[in-house]
Each structure stands twice: as C-alpha cells, then as structure tokens.
C-alpha cells in the first residue's frame, strides 16, 4: 500500500494489521524511552491547510517515536483562499524529498489530488466532509481494546453526519469489520441518498439507546442554525444530545465515544464525559500508536525492520 487516502484502501485485513501493529506500538509508548528506530532516515512532511493541533501533534509524536524526521509546513491563511494552486504547494513540499506527506485540507479530495502530484506516500489527515481514516482506525482500535472486537457490535453514530468526514470513515471501517451501524440525526444532518450506505437510520436517539454497544457522538456546529438545518442547538441537545438521563439508559458496558473536540453540553453532557465508559482520552492516546502503525505500514518497506509480534 502506497497511500492512505480512504478506509477503502485498507479493507478489513488492513485495519486488522494496523491494530496489530498498534498493539506493539502501544507497548513501545509505555517504555521509559518510547522510541524505536524503525523509520530512521525517513522524513514525514506535515501539510496542514486547516488548523488541527490535535491531529497534527498526534502525527508528529508518532513520527518521532519511529525516529523519522518531521517537516512542518505552515500554509498561510491567504493561500487557503479561493484560487490556490494545491499543486504548487505539493511541488514545493515534494522538492524537499519527504517519504510521506500528511495532508489536511478543508476541501474533499485534496489528498487524492496530492497523491497524483508527488512520489511520496500520502496520508489523509482529514479532507472536507470526505474522510478521516486515521480517526476511524483509532476508533476501531479503541473499541477492540475495550470490547474485544468491532465485529458484531451495535454502534450508534449520532450528530452531524452530513458534514462529517469522521462519519464517512467510521461507517466504512465499522461495517467492513462486521459491526451493525445505526446513524441517528435529524434528516437535515444526514447525507443525501444515505439509503445507499450500509447502515440503518433512525431519527430518534431514544429509540436506539438501550440497544447498543457504542454511542459515538459527532460535533454539531453553530453554523447549522443559520443554514436552516437546525432550529437551535438547544433543540438539538433536547432531541439528540447524550444527556445524563439518556446516558443512564445505556447498557453499563456501552462506550461513549467522540472524535473531539466536544461541544460540552451540546452533543454530550459534561457529567457523561467523566464516566468510566467515556473513551475520549483513550481515543487520543491510541491515536499516537495507530498513526505509528500507519506510518510504519506505509514507509517501512524492509520486512527485517518489522517489530516482533507485529503480524505479517
């Protein structure tokens, strides 16, 4: 595999392999010196057109723990304006000879376009409403870690599905691993033709709560009010928020997940976030190991360098 642009690039086997590698790198991360020489001499470029301190830091830490060099490119706000040539920027970055480019952009498809314009491996760190594959991978890893497997789990994803790259990647990853996914949102926050997705749909969170293994909340932004997609955030919380009362109806082992950052009190009540079945901090922690696994999978061509017990 050369690039990670979509969860589709991995399939079930690829996700399993990432998780097995992540197990190993989780162990590495717990060592006194959490560093292995696996990618010594390799360079990873960070091309973030959109601010995302969390994802960017996670990739940087992952690269450094594998002994790779990290190049950061600050893409100025002005070049993100209409009419930018992504190709020019990619050419500049490529000229520095990175082995991988991690791309984040507010427009869907930019990582795929980038892959056509560089010899480096391209990792999609989130593109518009399209995909965020490493987020879905760390979510799979978190579910596997807590519940043993993703297969057969009933996962409810609630929130602004329409505008969510996380939802697209998670739906693909969860379903390809054999989970049963239900999307919950008002119809205005569901994507068009969602009937063609391999999921069940519900407009009511209350109707599906008591019968699931995972509730995955998505961020809902204020702008949705002005776009006439929601009357108000207050109404959203009342109907689709994971309030304390709703959380009390969950199965005791059911997980509460969220890709962050959370609008506290909008998607999920603050007290629910503090419950032991809320996995937000674990998700962030697993993000580093999972991204180490992805970088390793794409860049460590030499099988002799593979860590023991890290799969085939």
């Amino acid at each position, binding site marked *: 595999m050369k690039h990670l642009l979509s969860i589709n690039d991995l399939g079930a086997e690829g996700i399993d392999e990432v998780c097995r590698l992540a197990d190993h790198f989780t162990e590495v991360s717990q060592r006194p010196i959490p560093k292995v020489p696996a990618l010594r001499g390799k360079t990873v470029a960070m091309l973030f057109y959109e601010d995302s301190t969390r994802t960017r830091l996670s990739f940087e830490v992952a690269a450094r723990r594998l002994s790779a060099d990290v190049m950061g490119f600050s893409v100025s706000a002005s070049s993100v304006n209409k*009419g930018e040539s*992504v190709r020019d920027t990619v050419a500049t970055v490529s000229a520095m000879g990175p082995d991988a480019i991690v791309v984040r952009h507010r427009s*869907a*498809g930019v990582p*795929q376009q980038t892959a056509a314009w560089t010899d480096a491996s391209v990792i999609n760190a989130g593109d*518009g409403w399209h995909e965020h594959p490493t987020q879905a991978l760390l979510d799979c890893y978190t579910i596997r870690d807590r519940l043993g497997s993703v297969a057969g789990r009933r996962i409810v994803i609630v929130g602004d599905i329409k505008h969510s790259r996380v939802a697209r990647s998670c739906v693909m990853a969860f379903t390809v691993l054999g989970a049963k996914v239900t999307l919950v949102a008002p119809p205005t926050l569901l994507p*068009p*033709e*969602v009937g063609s997705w391999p999921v069940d749909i519900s407009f009511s969170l209350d109707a599906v709560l008591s019968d699931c293994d995972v509730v995955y909340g998505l961020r809902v932004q204020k702008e949705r009010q002005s776009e006439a997609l929601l009357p108000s955030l207050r109404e959203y919380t009342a109907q689709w928020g994971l309030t304390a009362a709703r959380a009390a109806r969950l199965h005791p082992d059911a997980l509460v997940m969220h890709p962050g950052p959370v609008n506290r009190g909008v998607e999920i009540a603050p007290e629910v976030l503090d419950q032991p079945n809320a996995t937000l901090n674990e998700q962030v922690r697993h993000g580093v190991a999972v991204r180490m696994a992805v970088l390793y999978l794409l860049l460590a061509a030499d099988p002799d360098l593979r860590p023991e017990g890290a799969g085939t």
Partner: protein
Amino acid sequence: MSTVIKGGLVIDQTGERNGDVVVEDGRVVAVGPDLSGDEVLDASGCVVAPGFVDIHAHLRQPGAEEAETIETGSWAAVRGGYSAVVAMPNTNPPIDCAAVVQEVLALGRLAPCDVYTSGAITVGRKGEQLAPMAEMAALGVRLFTDDGRGVQEAGLMRRAMEYAAGLGVVLAQHCEVDSLAAGGHMHEGEWSSRLGIPGVPAEAEELMVMRDIALSRFTGAPIHFQHLSTRGSIAMVRAAREAGLEVTAEAATHHFTLTDEACASYDPVFKVNPPLRPADDRDAVREGLADGAVDAIATDHAPHSPDTKEMPFDQAPPGMLGLETALALALTELNLPLAEVVGLLTWQPAAIAGLKGVHGAPIAPDGPANLCVFDPNETWTVDPDALASRSRNTPYAGRQVRGRVRHTIVGGRPVLVDQEMRP
C-alpha cells in the same frame, strides 16, 4: 476562385443525396454529379452538411483572454465543424450593453467563423434590472441570457419575457435556483454523498424550468432552455411543447456522454454547471434528443486556464471544453441516424438563434456557403495538446471517439482543409 467538394453524401434539411458541391463568392453555385472547380476538396466517404451552429459557447473575451479569445475559440469551432457560434455574455465586463456587443462583434469579424453574441437579460447579469435589450437587438442580438446564472426573480423574468417578445428576440435560461444550488459543486446524489462534495440537486434546475414554462404560458413569450440535464426537466419541456407552447431546449454534449461518477477522481475537469448527473438523467437527455423534446446539441464550451485544474474540486470554476469534440461525441454516444445528428447541430440550433437562412440552410444553388465536411466513421483519440482552444480542460483526454471533421467552409472560404487550419 471556386471550390468543389467532391464525392460526398450531401445531408441537409431537405434530405440526403450523393453529389459534388461547388461554392464561389460565398454562395453555393451548383450541386450535382461530376462538378469541377479551382480547388478540389475530397469528400469521399464523408458527409457534406451545413456548417454547425453552436448556440452556447463561452469565448471568454473580453476579460479572460488567458483562457480563450474570440480568435482561438473560433478556431476551435472551425476544427469542430462549426461555421457559427453564439458567445455567452458572462465575460468581464459582461455583454449587457451596446458597447460590449459592438466590441465582441468587431473581434468576431476577424475570426474564421461567424461570431454572434447573446446579450445579458439583466444589467451585469445581476438579476436586478433589465439590460437594454432593444439597443442590443438593434445590433443583431437575437438571444438573451444571464448564462452562468438563472434569473432568480419570477416577477423580473415575467417582465423580461414580455419585453423581449415585443422585440422579437428570445430569452434563454440557465435554469438554476440559487437557494437550492448554493454551495454545491456536483450533482447531489449517491456519488456526492460518498465523496463528501456538497451537491446541487436536480430540483434546482427543474424548479426553474417549471416556473419558466408557466411564465411562457402566461406571457405568450417563447423561452429557450439551456443545457438541460435532468429527466424531470426534459419531461416538462416535452409536455409543454405538446401543449403548444413556444418552448425550445438544448443539451450539452457532456450531459449525454458523462455521469457524476466521473467526479470520483476529484479532477476538477469534470466539474461543470449544471453538473454531470447519474446515468438515468444522461439517458433521458439522449431520449430527448432522439424524440425531439430537445432541439439542439450545444457545447457549453467553457475554457479555463490550466492552473484551475490544480485547485481543490470545490474551489475550481465549473466548465469544460466542447467545440472540438461535439460531433464525435454525438456520433459515438447517440444512436441516431446521421440526418438527425446533423439537424441537432445545424438547422435546429440555427432556428433558435435566429440564424436560419444564413446557417443551417439547405445546400442548394444560391444558398450560403457555410459547410462542414466530416467523416462519420473515422476514429480518433482526443489529445488535449492537439486542441486549437487556448485551454486544455477537456474531460475526454485519451477517449476514443468516432466521427471527424475534415473540412469547414465559412462564407465560401475553406478555413479548415484536411483538418488543417487555414488562416
């Protein structure tokens, strides 16, 4: 100096016949067997048709000469077999007054094919105030459109139709309700859903088609619909014509050739407005062209400079080249008799644009010598670098197609001979 076109199958509105065609001094002087002339153009195995008429071309001048000029766009037209093109008014400044019309027509007089222009319906194409249609009509403008945008306000559109009818000119609508289409970059459907690209629903087009049919019934004024792309739109036009309304329609080559699946590449060369639609809509466009619901094939030739291909899909401007591939796509993609394809490219669009008698006319003595000679069976591969257009944004790069223009004659002058441009 006379030119004889030898050995072709002559197809025009009056029918088909084998024969040579002699042109001299801008007119056809003879049609029949074994004719001769000073210059001989070989048409064996070819169709001799009236020159094609594109009623929807973006020639980009004034304002975006880096993408196309009237000169380069006209050469692209000639390469595509066109003897006449109608320029769209979304230039900078827009073609919304006599001064800009005169500028475009003056440049057009230097071009290798006949260049006509449309005029804007509203000042600045802003949809707020009627443009001076009478002063533009006095300069010969016959088609008015705010193309690139639809006229949003029903009340304003009503007045525009009434006013235009009094001048004997036709309004052409780019059907798109802004409030439904806003922020969209491809067809709203399964593919946009999967790709995470904001969509434009078919209903954004259909609502305006529905409204303008109602306004045509109300005002009695004719209306022409540009680049129809959905099954619903075409069904409404078909019904309106059956009801006796003066409604005409065109379809763009890409809408009967491509589908929204092409956007999965995220290559902005597949971005166009109205967007590429699913296969069922594409099929409906084909059916409309076959049964007469749609009168004309248009190109919506929309050149963009190369750097626009290097933008993210949602930032790139919509539009694709069309003039040099239209005939080949019609012959390759539409399963229609040759004479029907010729009609869709010649006398039918000529009638809409008020050019009958000059373009699309029967090929007969004393008729105008605006002609196209094409080989309906030659296959070729589209090569962006071989195009005459100043731009390269063809979505058909590498595609094998059938049907190729060999000669184009404009005003009796061979401007394309054996696929070579003759300045």
